[in-house]
């Protein structure tokens, strides 16, 4: 059991924990947070995949992928929060979606 496998398993655990609220939570904000946790789990697995042994330089490709993924996740979260704010301002309940 290597350090990188530990991180990959941690990522998988975060991912697994976030599935339930992502699909079934009624509150919109919880679902948005769950989506971010799901993404973080995937990113952690990707970072762990870049491990190429003690002292060796990690694989830059996975880091590039994670950076791109984070940009996408931040944009999507921003858009989701903006929509939630507009709905809230319009007086809609956030549980009805």
């Amino acid at each position: 059991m290597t350090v990188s496998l530990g991180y990959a398993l941690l990522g998988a655990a975060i991912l697994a924990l976030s599935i339930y609220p992502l699909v079934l939570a009624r509150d919109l904000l919880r679902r948005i947070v769950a989506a971010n946790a799901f993404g973080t789990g995937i990113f952690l697995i990707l970072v762990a995949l870049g491990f190429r042994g003690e002292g060796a330089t990690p694989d830059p490709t996975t880091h590039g992928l994670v950076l791109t993924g984070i940009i996408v996740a931040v944009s999507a979260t921003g858009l989701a929060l903006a929509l939630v704010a507009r709905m809230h301002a319009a007086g809609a309940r956030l549980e009805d979606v």
Partner: protein
Amino acid sequence: MSDTVSALLAGVDWAAVAILTPLAGGAAAFVLPDRARAIGVAASVTTAAAAVALVWLIATAGPYDLAVGGWSAPLGIRIAADGLSAVLIGMTNLVGASVAVHAALTGRQTKPVAEAGVAAWGFWPLWLLLLAGLNALYLSADVFNLYVTLEIVGLSAVGLAALSGKAEAFKAAIRYLLVGIIASLVYLLGVTLLFAQYGVLDLAGLRAVLVPAPATQFAMVAMLAALAMKSALFPLHGWLPPAHGNATSPVSALLSALVVKASLYIAVRLWLDLYQPAGLGDDAIATVLGVLGACAVLWGGLQALIAKRLKLVVAYSTVAQIGYLFMCFPLWADGREALAAFVYLAVAHAFAKSALFLACEQVQRTLGDDQVSSLSKPELPGAVKVTFALAAVSLVGLPPSGGFIGKWLLLESTLSHGLTVWTVIVLCGTLLSAAAMARVLARFFAPEGQAAAHPQVVGDAASWRFSLTPLLLAVAAVGIGLLGAWPVELVGIVGTAQ
């Protein structure tokens, strides 16, 4: 003559133009909201011209392939296009430019931009971003780039769906966004699993090394499920009718005609380029996709038949049409044979569906709402009725329309594979969509009562501005059937590396 044209065209990298023009135009339209409309139309038309040049070059000189910045795969990112990409790029840009022209013709603002707010100009930057995303998606040649472009398409589509500012539109947009986020994350999980096993993201590179291991199959199922969700395959279609039915008409046209095709294209690309050659295109998975497609054909057809609002009739017909496209999957056991059916159905649907949604705008403005029960009022202009009739001809699949050729090829393929059940379902679906369209057309052409003494027509709703582009698109949907074997030959152009 065609050699001279090709030589002239070959000097410019049209793929780069097709991606960068809308990107630059979108940024410009965002910075200069006063000029957003002019910038939007100019960028859409320029991009469409570049796309036509690219398609011409692919048709005459073979597949397009470029290592961006001179870095070849696996280090660099490759962009490439074969015949299948070329057809979809052509479809996207021609339909997109028509919708943009329609939006410019009909979106005259009486108030200055500063007062009208983002609803008045927000369409243009978002649409140009969407166009850049779509063109980049069809030109991508690695699974991660496909993910990024799919996200660009998804996020700009959600922004567009929310633009109408109605409470239902916000709700539909949030549902659309959440479905989109879940689907993208599952797709990304599949990409991660593939990368973990093979260390390659490039499609051609993956194709060379893929083996039928359990983790690969899991990744493949995850990616296909995510793409099916994004394409609104039954029973994951629940988000589509509200999102498409509550947006403004040009946006509904773009979402229904173009955006759902993007994720479908990725599913087809992965299926044909990775899974089939690597022996992973399992019969069971193909059958599941086909059965869900068949359910979508029947369920979407039924819902379209009983929907109360005209835009929902049109939106549910999209659910059914996506079903036909997924029914092509089990027929691909021997490679690219049934691809022609897929392409004809997809392209004919794009033209017919954009025509229908754009025509809905004039119906809404003339009648004040789009309830199916009020369609028999005699105030409707004749051009709208003709547009609906022509688009219905293609959607139902009557000769000589593009939809007819697509359905004919699909039926022929089901018969030659001995899948008689599929044949029956295609025919039942055709009957259902014919009935749904007849329900609308019967009210159009058999008006009840007299025209009101004081017509309630708002503004210039009867003007040609509203009917010109939908009519042209509907004529194109029928006319595609007259192109002969040209689209099939174009699809047959296969890259060595894609």
